[in-house]
């Protein structure tokens, strides 16, 4: 390029050398009900007593589901299971903020969100029991199943959101993953593209401080995960992930923004994984008990129970009745799960393609012969 020779040269000269650019780095942190059950500021509109009780019940059911799933795993009746102990407020808050026709793209610790959205306890048990039928949700037909490869579903959410936009629908996609997931390329590529296309999608990074044995501090030098959005031109929000009210409020705001055509949001929900990574893990090998005990003080259920109790909206009997309710629900689900009809191994071939290609005939026939001989 030929250097300018007119008066513009002065402007050009001024930008040569060391110039300071001010990049705006602002993260909102949202927190309503603290660990002691004390409220900060006015609660959001949705948070009337009745609704808070509904949220509380959903969190308790999630925890009871967890306990039951672990018990089933320990007795050889369920596969490897990822508990969400201590993180219940995040999935429940996320799902409560969504409309039923939004689409959830969960990771593997979002049972609370799936249950809220109408995935049945039996379906969840089937999934964790190693049966694909558990992913054929009777409820939220368009929700995605659990994505096991970390962060690999973030691009799917962008695709789903684009589909909604192209059809002119008033819907949004919500994608949930862990703190570890924010180190992956597909996470960055997904938020980057969602930003470019201003798509109706909300990304929720559940920061439970651990990715199996790797602590949050070893995952990234970034001060927050939320700020990772900023480089993509996307808003990043930090929220107390153990306060279901805060999570729901943050996701509701992000969804309203998404629906208004104002693009994506990344929400970092700060929480703590109180349990092992999965039933195949023993966290005591890499994590101090003292750290875990300290975090029990800020877990999500007791603070909301405390708040409701302080409001005179909840008492010991309510609690007993709720626990009995959840336990009964789990008994029914477990029975249904264990009694789930036998399933011919031929099913391995049934949904591989819309129509089984001719090239598969020999293999299917061989499997059938094997079954007859068994």
């Amino acid at each position: 390029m030929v250097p300018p020779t007119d008066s513009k040269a002065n402007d050009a000269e001024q930008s040569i050398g060391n110039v300071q650019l001010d990049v705006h780095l602002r993260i909102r942190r949202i927190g309503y009900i603290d660990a002691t059950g004390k409220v900060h500021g006015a609660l959001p509109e949705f948070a009337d007593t009745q609704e808070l009780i509904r949220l509380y019940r959903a969190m308790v059911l999630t925890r009871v589901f967890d306990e039951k799933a672990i018990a089933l795993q320990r007795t050889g009746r369920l596969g490897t299971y990822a508990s969400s102990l201590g993180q219940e407020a995040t999935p429940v808050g996320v799902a409560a903020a969504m409309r039923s026709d939004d689409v959830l793209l969960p990771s593997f610790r979002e049972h609370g969100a799936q249950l809220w959205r109408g995935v049945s306890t039996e379906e969840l048990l089937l999934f964790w029991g190693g049966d694909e039928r558990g992913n054929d949700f009777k409820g939220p037909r368009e929700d995605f199943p659990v994505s096991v490869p970390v962060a690999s579903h973030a691009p799917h959410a962008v695709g789903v959101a684009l589909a909604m936009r192209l059809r002119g629908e008033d819907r949004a996609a919500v994608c949930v993953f862990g703190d570890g997931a924010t180190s992956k390329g597909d996470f960055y590529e997904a938020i980057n593209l969602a930003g470019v296309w201003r798509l109706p999608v909300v990304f929720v990074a559940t920061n439970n401080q651990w990715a199996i044995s790797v602590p949050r501090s070893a995952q990234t030098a970034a001060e927050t995960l939320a700020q990772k959005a900023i480089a993509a031109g996307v808003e990043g929000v930090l929220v107390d992930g153990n306060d279901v009210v805060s999570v729901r409020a943050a996701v509701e705001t992000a969804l309203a923004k998404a629906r208004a055509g104002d693009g994506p949001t990344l929400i970092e929900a700060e929480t703590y994984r109180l349990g092992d990574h999965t039933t195949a893990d023993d966290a005591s090998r890499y994590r101090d008990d003292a750290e875990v005990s300290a975090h029990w003080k800020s877990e999500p259920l007791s603070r909301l129970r405390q708040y409701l109790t302080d409001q005179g909206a909840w008492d010991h009997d309510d609690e007993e009745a709720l626990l009995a309710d959840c336990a009964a629900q789990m008994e029914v689900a477990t029975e249904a799960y264990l009694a789930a009809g036998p399933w011919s191994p031929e099913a391995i071939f049934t949904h591989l393609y819309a129509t089984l290609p001719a090239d598969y005939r020999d293999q299917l026939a061989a499997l059938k012969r094997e079954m007859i001989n068994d």
Partner: protein
Amino acid sequence: MTERSLVEAINLALSRAMTEDESVLVLGEDVGVDGGVFRATAGLIDRFGAERVRDTPISEAVIAGVSVGLAAAGFRPVAEIQFMGFSLTVLDQLVNHASRLRNRTQGRLTCPMVLRAPYGGGIHALEHHSESFEALFTHIPGLRVVIPSSPRRAYGLLLAAIRDPDPVVFFEPKRLYRLAREEVADDGEALPLDQCVTLRNGSDLTVVTWGAMCHDTLMAAKTLEDEGIEAEVIDVATLRPLDFATILTSVEKTGRCLIVHEAVMTGGFGGEIAARLAEHALMSLLAPVKRVTAWDTVVPYPRHESHFIPSPARIAAAAREIMEFA
């Protein structure tokens, strides 16, 4: 009817599919105003608009991943990866999601997406622009791997791929993009997937190949014909799922088989065909099955490229060897 090159036939099939079906959309790097680095998507943005012809950032993994999301949500995305050499990061999405979504959800969510990429050498390109690793994709159950070898087949097979209810990777032999023209009717007729095409009948030996090698194999067959050797040439067209029946029938007739591919030998798809012949055609074979492939080396820079890619002479020589055996 108009004579068209292979890349023009691709463009024609894309236009046709987008006209027929509103859910078809095109995405990839430079596919919009630029019309794609090989012009495969030229003019589409003017006809169908920037909503349906979408330039993406340079994010191959996300191009594939977004396509999975779009497909599951009711669209039929046709994604372009600029060169096969840059498609490795999409393997995660293809292996772990696109090919499994239907089975994982027992048919609740499906993935009717097409991922197009030019492949193969012979255009004197920079490193990474001449690769042929189609075999990597043939190892993925739930996926279709389709490779056209002429303008007409490019048109018909791409239409079929777009209309197919399952994910398809569609690899275009870029050396053939403009090499030859033939009449291609824009009649909206798809060609069948999962079927080999017999390009030439012959009784002495069967030569199985695909992509740009069809061209070189037909040249070799011409030479062999002058020597009195009649080669039957089969274009595999869909590598996965494989139409082995057509190959087997031919080999049962000729008793001899040569497999030709541009990809390196070890782990190449030729090995799969040879293994199946060993399993099913032993009693029909008069001579060992032979493979002519690129050497098991790194794809060389263009200066040595012509010594790397199998030539008609190398193919003809291998055919003669088979004939001499028995």
